[in-house]
């Protein structure tokens, strides 16, 4: 059962996103539902590395240094991604098969907002993959993958 603190932390990711088809309300989703699928569509290697970006987002999006505008951009991106999926295949993004989802990504990548949304999501994925193990999101598997030696000393506690 989700406790109050975790609920508040997850608040934004569990908030409602109204997805429209034309002017009609098509469905209601949450950012986390889409992000759980989208992260591995964008960077499937993260799964192999054992990194879950949605877990990282729960930490970072509750931090004081992430402002409301950033959350709004993410939420809008999720909404528009789903609306493009509906326009193209008549279904919300998470209801599509993998090939269809890639076609939606290709389509949105050619738009300004889509390019920025993918870039934003990839940035969070990379922050998760290459974060210090102290954040409990990545074990350092991303660093090993790239033979990367981090700077020393490593943090003793998460500062976010």
């Amino acid at each position, binding site marked *: 059962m989700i406790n109050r603190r975790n609920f508040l932390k997850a608040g934004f990711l569990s908030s409602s996103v109204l997805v429209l088809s034309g002017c009609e309300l098509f469905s209601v989703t949450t950012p986390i539902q889409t992000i759980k699928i989208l992260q591995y*569509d*964008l*960077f*499937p*290697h993260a799964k192999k590395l054992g990194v879950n970006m949605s877990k990282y987002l729960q930490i970072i999006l509750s*931090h*004081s*240094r992430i*402002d409301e505008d950033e959350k709004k951009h993410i939420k809008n991106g999720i909404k528009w991604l789903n609306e493009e999926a509906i326009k193209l295949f008549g279904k919300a993004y998470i209801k599509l098969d993998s090939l269809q989802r*890639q076609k939606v*990504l290709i389509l949105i*990548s050619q738009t300004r907002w889509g*390019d920025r949304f*993918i*870039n934003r999501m*990839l*940035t969070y994925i*990379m*922050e998760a993959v*290459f*974060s*210090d193990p*102290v*954040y409990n999101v990545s074990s350092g598997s*991303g*660093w090993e*993958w*790239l*033979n*990367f*030696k*981090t*700077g*020393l*000393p*490593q*943090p*003793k506690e998460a*500062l*976010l």
Partner: protein
Amino acid sequence: MIYDICIVGSGAGGSPIAYELSKAGFNVVVLEKGKNYTEADISKDELAVSRRDKFIPMLKDEKHIINEIDEDGNLTRFDGDEYNWNFWNGSMVGGSSNLMSGYFHRMKPNDFKLKSVYGDIKGANIVDWVISYEELEPYYEKVEHIVGVSGKIEKHKFLEPRSTKEFPYTKLFENGVTTWFDKTCKKLSLESFATPRAILSENALDRKGCEYSNFCGSYACATGAKGSARAALLQKCSAKIIPEAFVYKLDSDEKKVTFAHYYDKDLKSHSIEAKIFVLSAQAIESVRLLLNSKNKHFPNGLANTNKQVGKNLIFSAGGSGSGRFDFKDLSKERQDELMQVGLFFNRSLQDDYEFEEDGKKYKGGTTDFLFEHQNIISRVSREFYDEGGNILWGDTLRDKIHNRLTTSRKLTFEVFNDWLPTDKCFIGVDEKEKDKFNTPVGVINLYGHPHDLEVGEKLAQKAVKVLKEMGAKDITYSISSAPPPNLVAGGCRFGDDVKTSVLDKNCKTHDLDNLYVADASFMPTGGSVPYTWTIYANSFRIADEILKVIKSYTNPH
């Protein structure tokens, strides 16, 4: 309690004065807006330091207004919070010197007499300094010993005169690629030399030597090897430091500053009384405090009778570039050298510090070479696009990242040349916008003189030539008027003429008998090197002057 000296700001400008005056037995208090960290608090956490800017204020609380002015005088206004653009550098005890790379170059003798040697340039307010290189030289030397500068003197065309033969600390260990670089420069008849660094190469000065732990620039040093104002000076003296103290106003009568008022972290106001006040909050903030301290004696702001405060803001002009070395072009031995991390690539070129064209002498600058910063998230993020500018994802992105980061490495360069002072580049305060302290925010009016770009371009092309000859690929560079926020100076220039300067030769304000400004604000021109060594040296010089003054009416305790 009445302090002998109250210093506002604890970076490279204020700390030498705190160090010298407290060592001489005077009561010194340092007010610093940021927190006080020790070596034990420091780690190389990219997420906290570089991605979430742990060491600068949140822009929704404290921002700048930035006005960009183009050649035709058109102005574009940017709200720093909205555009995520700021000029903060390091809000912490020791200031931005904690986060510097410590590339230490002295200014050259001719930098002190730019107008006399190179003449006027239309649209630029070039003047000679009121002190000479010879007057500052003993203090450059003092910094080498007290702050700690490591390096090796190598003769070159523009090596400045020195009172000592060698640096007190031997040069740091270097990456093997420096030997390829030196050979190439020799072939091109260029005189490369090891960049002096404000980093101890051995245990000394009651500090540890460099442990080559990777991630140096942009990060505070966990060993104390880097010569930050905190590690080298404030931790070595008895000056009282009050962290998380934002000074919002100075009070004065007609002749003297009387009180500094500050807010603590709970926004509770406090006051400090002192005999002498020193401003060293970094050029923009020092000017802002003066302008925000208007009173009946100084209706334009403190020390601003002649409306010179904030004028002639300068940065370091120039830009940066890079080239990539790829495994496929290298022997196994060279591949291994390329991927050595932790070791420094300390190389500089100053062959064009001065150059001639059509029989006229021009001021050039410095080019420092270094490897791309090790920040992994930033490096990976730079691979998100293909050559056509299309965003990548999936396995294509995975393969590109892996290939780029495991079989190639970028060597970068930074060009430093004079940012000419002009009437269009200055600091003010906003009449409406206030920060979380309810204090008017700083306004930065930006203008880069076209001449700066021409010089930067010349230096960059020389650097590109070196990279090409070394066999680098994907060479790119950018010379622009974008101001580097960590290389800011001017705004309270020193001079003999009260009508065109704010400070006298000793960096005391013309208007007030007990107010000094000791950060880079005093610089009327900036030289073509990073400023920190000169700021430190000048502050030690001011410390000597303040000692003379204070000893004339007070005994040490």
